[in-house]
């Protein structure tokens, strides 16, 4: 199997803007629509960030890693076929909780993970604020707010790809229960390893 360490696999619930974000990152032309289930197969593209070439794969939306239909099956297969890949989990900032189920499943699988909090503009419009710092601290992976529509955060996200983290799910559980093994450091460090 080819080296997949420079592969970025985009996963997320249906209709969170994976394909729109994929197009932003790669300049690709994946079909984008405003209803779920648009992507039923995957699209590949290339992103060059800081001299580093990444192969980006836009997977169909899935609610979990236990496939329930053919499109979900493609997404689940992609994650098994690219074991070393960085998984970019795309969450809808207006419905963060819903996407966390899949995010936690991906973390549990032991993949290096980075989270894009997409549709942050829509969240702002609806006066939904997400404390990315706390989310980052609990999950232990970088969380980057993005808006694929306006392009906001896309550059930050590309720059943060190399900082994706593998996290032990039990430590996430402990932190979610308020047990932090290291005291919170000053200077804005969230312990995500992003530095």
């Amino acid at each position, binding site marked *: 199997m080819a080296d997949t360490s420079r592969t970025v696999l985009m996963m997320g619930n249906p209709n969170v803007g994976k394909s729109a974000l994929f197009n932003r990152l790669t300049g690709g032309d994946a079909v984008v629509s405003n209803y779920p289930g648009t992507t039923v197969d995957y699209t590949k593209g290339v992103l060059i960030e800081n001299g580093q070439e990444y192969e980006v794969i836009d997977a169909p939306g899935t*609610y*979990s890693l*236990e496939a*329930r239909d053919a499109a979900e099956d493609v997404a689940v297969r992609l994650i098994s076929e690219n074991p070393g890949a960085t998984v970019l989990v795309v969450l809808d900032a*207006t*419905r963060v*909780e*819903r996407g966390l*189920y*899949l995010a936690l499943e991906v973390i549990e699988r032991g993949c290096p993970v980075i989270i894009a909090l997409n549709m942050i503009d829509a969240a702002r419009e609806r006066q939904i604020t997400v404390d990315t710092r706390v989310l980052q601290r609990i999950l232990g992976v970088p969380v980057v707010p993005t808006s694929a529509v306006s392009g906001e955060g896309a550059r930050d996200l590309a720059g943060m790809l190399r900082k994706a983290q593998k996290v032990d799910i039990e430590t996430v559980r402990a932190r979610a229960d308020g047990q932090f093994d290291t005291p919170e450091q000053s200077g804005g460090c969230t312990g995500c390893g992003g530095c």
Partner: protein
Amino acid sequence: MKRLSELEYGESGVVREIRASQHELNCLGIRMKKQVKMITRQPIKGPVVVVVDDMEVAMGLDTAEGVVIETGEHEGS
């Protein structure tokens, strides 16, 4: 307490027990203590459509029958 499939149109309640596939419902956002509101319930095998966290979730009638809901105003009546 009543089954999710027994909610009236527009009626809301809180999830108290899930006897159907936990995994399938959990990943769709239906979990214990979640508020759900009935949108539509089609006869025979469904679908049953409810709103959870401002999102519509559709499921088969048999799945909806496995979810126990506590409805506030009808409690004890």
